[in-house]
């Protein structure tokens, strides 16, 4: 295999990994605060369609990403009102959000099938981004670098700052955090909103970069893979990055074997691979002796009511 092909394979991998890293990172922060938002796929779809419509109407792709993040955030607030303010079951509310996002995106996007938009250009100057070898590091758009920077930021925020400590405290023991005087619900809202914005951004990466066009259910279940990655990472940002790139590799394998016409496995079997790999990964990570579930935030998915 020539070096050139190897480099383009790695670049495809990075692009495949970026949206699940973004969505996973947002969910990781939300889950660290004790909230299980299963609506990632729905928020991604809302972001994907809002971003695409904006980019296609304004012709300005960065505006698409901005609106996508905002749309994802709004969708997450819908979850917040039901699950945090009203105290509805988080599993059911998250599922409702996913069904809602799926319906809303296909309704809103119906008129935009076949429209084209322009991708974001590479962040670095052509000399680096177009260099036959260095493009493996410099050849991406700003979102890719942003996703890595956000991983760094999230790891630092959660482990080395006071607000990060408070957020983790809320996720580990909401009652204690409340007793000390921290506004549990407000903190959870912020974490959920952050998760929503990143999910929106992640969705837009599919409609504006991975396949720059609109198609129904464009995220194809990747939001669920992002959710599984959070468990796989044991709620640690750097492991999430690693996990996202491993899954990027699995998805790239699928793409390239299809393109190369490998007769090894039928295309449908290859398309199964990321989902099967997720199930296997969840099983393997749970097999570690005496770890597994112990890593999960203690209050994950539990409803909190002050004074109840």
């Amino acid at each position, binding site marked *: 295999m020539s070096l050139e092909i190897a480099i383009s394979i790695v670049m495809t991998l990075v692009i495949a990994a970026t949206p699940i890293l973004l969505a996973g990172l947002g969910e990781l922060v939300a889950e660290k605060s004790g909230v299980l938002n299963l609506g990632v796929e729905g928020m991604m779809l809302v972001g994907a369609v809002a971003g695409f419509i904006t980019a296609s109407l304004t012709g300005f792709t960065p505006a698409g990403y901005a609106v996508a993040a905002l749309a994802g955030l709004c969708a997450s607030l819908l979850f917040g009102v039901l699950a945090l303010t009203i105290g509805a079951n988080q599993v059911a509310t998250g599922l409702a959000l996913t*069904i809602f996002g799926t*319906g*809303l995106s*296909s*309704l809103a996007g119906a008129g935009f099938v076949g429209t084209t938009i322009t991708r974001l250009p590479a962040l670095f100057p052509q000399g680096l981004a177009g260099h036959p070898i260095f493009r493996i590091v410099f050849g991406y758009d700003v979102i890719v670098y942003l996703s890595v920077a956000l991983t760094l930021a999230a790891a630092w925020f959660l482990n080395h700052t006071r607000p990060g400590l408070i957020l983790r405290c809320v996720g580990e023991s909401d009652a204690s955090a409340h007793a000390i005087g921290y506004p549990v619900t407000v903190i959870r809202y912020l974490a959920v909103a952050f998760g929503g914005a990143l999910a929106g951004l992640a969705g837009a990466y599919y409609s504006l970069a991975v396949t720059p066009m609109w198609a129904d259910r464009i995220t194809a279940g990747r939001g669920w893979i992002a959710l*599984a990655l959070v468990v796989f990472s044991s709620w640690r940002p750097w492991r999430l990055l690693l996990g996202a790139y491993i899954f990027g590799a699995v998805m790239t394998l699928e793409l390239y074997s299809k393109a190369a016409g490998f007769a090894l496995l039928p295309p449908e079997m290859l398309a199964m691979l990321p*989902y099967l790999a997720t199930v296997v990964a969840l099983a393997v990570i749970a097999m570690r002796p005496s770890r597994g579930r112990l890593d999960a935030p203690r209050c994950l998915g539990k409803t909190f009511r002050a004074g109840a």
Partner: protein
Amino acid sequence: MRLKLEPRKASSRLALYAAPVAAIALTMLTGMVLFTFMGFRGATAVFEIFIQPLLQPERWPDIAVKASPLVMIATGLAIGFRANVWNIGAEGQYIVGAIAGTGVALATYDTEGWWVLPLMLLAGIVGGAAWAAIPALLRIRLRVSEILTSLMLTYVALQLLYYLVRGPWRDPEGYNFPQTRMFSEAQTVPNLLEGTQLHWGVLLTLVVVFIAWFVMSRTLSGYQVRVVGLAPMAARLGGFSENRTVVMTMLVSGALAGLAGMVECSATFGQLTPQFPVNYGFTAIIVAFLGRLHPVGVLIGGLALATSYIGADIAQTASSLPQAATGLIQAMMLFFLLGVDIFVANRVRLAPSLTQHAS
């Protein structure tokens, strides 16, 4: 003075039963505003979706046929949800049920006999249960959340279906269309009422609902499921095994989804095609909640959702409302239901404003 939510001592029965009605009413109102805003005749469209099908008796059989798989799947899911077992991969179990049944159909092609159809339905049950057994085992053995695994397996099942109908199971005389050969008469769920779509599967669903009601409210197993869900600690002290409950509820919900898949495949399609899965497995989650996780409620909820499906078809033709609006309507129902449910466990009281007490 301000409004304050106060927990009730016992949850309100009235609120419990009124909540789905209120949720549907709120969905109709919001839908009206939303569709008008989107440039459709909002009030007309909402009328066509929710009311029109009920006014046309010739559409009632269609509603029953549409409701049948939804109710059957949701009955199983509701049992699991009661025990805090979140099988959200019913869509996958529905598909695998149909695949297993179709396997029997293709193997018994050219064979006549009364036993062919029951064998296909049995294969559907076993297929769905087997697919649900994977997340069940992963949960009890390794404590892996069944939510994610059951959902992942839905995507796997979908690809398996595509593979089979494009590859080994493709109809040799089907002009290369990705679908199996048509089922024979002996392999088709018989029609119930001449001139309508109504088939025996609808009766089967009613039987399932009755059995589920009986088991859940009149037997120890049903009691066990409810206790494990409501008070896991008490269940443990009472000697009820949580693992057993997880496995049983997963298998039952998988089996019913698989059966529904096989019936739908045989009665409505008469063959396995890629067009077969239409997200009934996900809609059934809404049906389960709308039906208050009770078999009889699920029956009513299923009829309501089926009405909205048939109504959406009417609105599509009459008001050119896109098909996608159905999904949005369904999601809104669940959203509003979850919101309104706050009044089941709480009541609204007037309370002195916060500032007077803040210190």
